[in-house]
């Protein structure tokens, strides 16, 4: 069973986004973090100091662990940003500044 079933959800057709160049399916109504979780991805940032992987921690926009680069904009909180068709999501390295 997946969590859509008990809520009898009928989301719209999946669309494609890319994560580090890899195409993934995503749906309207999800955040970037939710889309990545659905695809089994749990890490999309490496820390500035020691390059350790991070993903969602607080889930509500408080901890900033889930920072990610979306369409060349670094430092976006994946748990807050809605996912859109064609989004180009990239792992954020360090401060993300190298992306612009």
């Amino acid at each position: 069973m997946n969590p859509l079933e008990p809520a009898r959800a009928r989301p719209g057709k999946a669309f494609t986004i890319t994560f580090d160049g890899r195409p993934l399916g995503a749906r309207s109504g999800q955040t970037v973090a939710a889309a990545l979780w659905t695809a089994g991805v749990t890490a999309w940032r490496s820390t500035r100091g020691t390059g350790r992987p991070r993903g969602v921690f607080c889930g509500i926009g408080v901890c900033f662990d889930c920072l990610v680069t979306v369409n060349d904009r670094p430092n976006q909180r994946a748990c807050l940003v809605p996912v859109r068709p064609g989004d180009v999501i990239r792992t954020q390295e360090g401060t993300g500044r190298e992306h612009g």
Partner: protein
Amino acid sequence: MAEQPHLTVVGAGPAGLAGALAAAERGVRVTLVDAAGRPGGQFFRQPDPALGADRKQTPHHEWRVWKRLRDGLDRHRATGRITHLTDHHVWCAERDPGSTEITVYALAGATQEEGVTVRSDAVLLATGGYERVLPFPGWTLPGVVTAGGAQAMLKGSLVLPGRKIVVAGTGPLLLPVAAGLASAGAQVAALVESASPRALLRRAPVLAAQPGKLAEGAGYAARLLRHGVRVLPRHTVVEAHGTGRLTAVTVASLDRRGRVRPGGAHRIACDTLAVGHGMLPHTDLADTLGCTLSGTDVRVDSEQRTDVPGVWAAGEATGIGGAALALAEGHIAGRSIAARLHGNAPDPCQWAAAARARKRLRTFSAALDSVYAPPPGWTDRVADDTVVCRCEEVTAGDVRTAAGSLGGSDLRTLKLLTRAGMGWCQGRMCAPAVAGLSGCAFTPGRRPFARPVPLGVLATPPGQRLD
């Protein structure tokens, strides 16, 4: 004061909604500002409409109460009595010098770069709270999430963080989280609660005075049983294992004093750990406005007024106590605001029922607090190389050195010495741990802004951004 007084409510959770409705029904024009795309806050968080959920009540509680709030909000929005600004992140609030008005500054738009200003005669701070997680080795691994965060992602986006989940920590939130995850199809490998059932029994008289709350707890317990979830009371997670992502946790049993029992540890394979050690209130906006805090909470009087004129506060911001308490406090605040803005002294008899509920629920949550305190020996189990400040990657060893040989004895000094609390989250995640490890008092950080603000917005004079 204008013909029709104007109130800004920050936060559209149970407290903010109850306050906005009570005030609007009494002739106040309300602007309700919330960072989320939909009303409801944490407790009444909804799946995004685009997910087409037919049975929204499935990951949901108290559907009838929610319907009443939502219908009230819709009604007042239709008449223009309430304006709801969704996706608006408030980063600062201030009293205008030389007038009684209060200005709230928000960031709007998908990238939160557009500044929006709202001026009004009063403000109700109903900003809720966030989860406290105390560090342990491995807690920064992907796959380790806060219990409330897992719940929020499930309720809002109908997603699960993994397949096999351990729910751990302490506090009443763990029960609904474990039950919610199990009902949504996750395998909940264990619910690990450090409090002891005996401590609950000792508080039985106070707890029994809240039959509704007990029934709610029993309901979750029954669901856990039905899903075959193993409950491990008086246990704690001592380590999360994995490289790159979580693969297992080690849990240990605790003795009566809350210390790990020698030989009482075992490993549980899992891909997710949902963990929490209680909640902390959001007090940044109250702090910038100059409201006095009491410990970690915004201090309010019997009308939910802070000590700054024109500023009220309700819900978790004034102390953690759950959604029912937030509703009662919000209702009282809304009625008090309406009376005061119309120039009348309010009559507390008119909110006697809400005041009784508030008293009962505060007593109840104080009893819960004493049961669900983090186990006393938790700092001993944080190894020196464990990261404590997740943003700046400051370790427990760094904090211990700063507090020991460098003599840091308050959170501000420790922050300057170690950078713990200087990063993106501004110490929201690490401050309780830094305080615990260094033995200094836990005081909520004074943050210049409640949210990160783009320089462009700061550079624009506020007067140019009127709503």
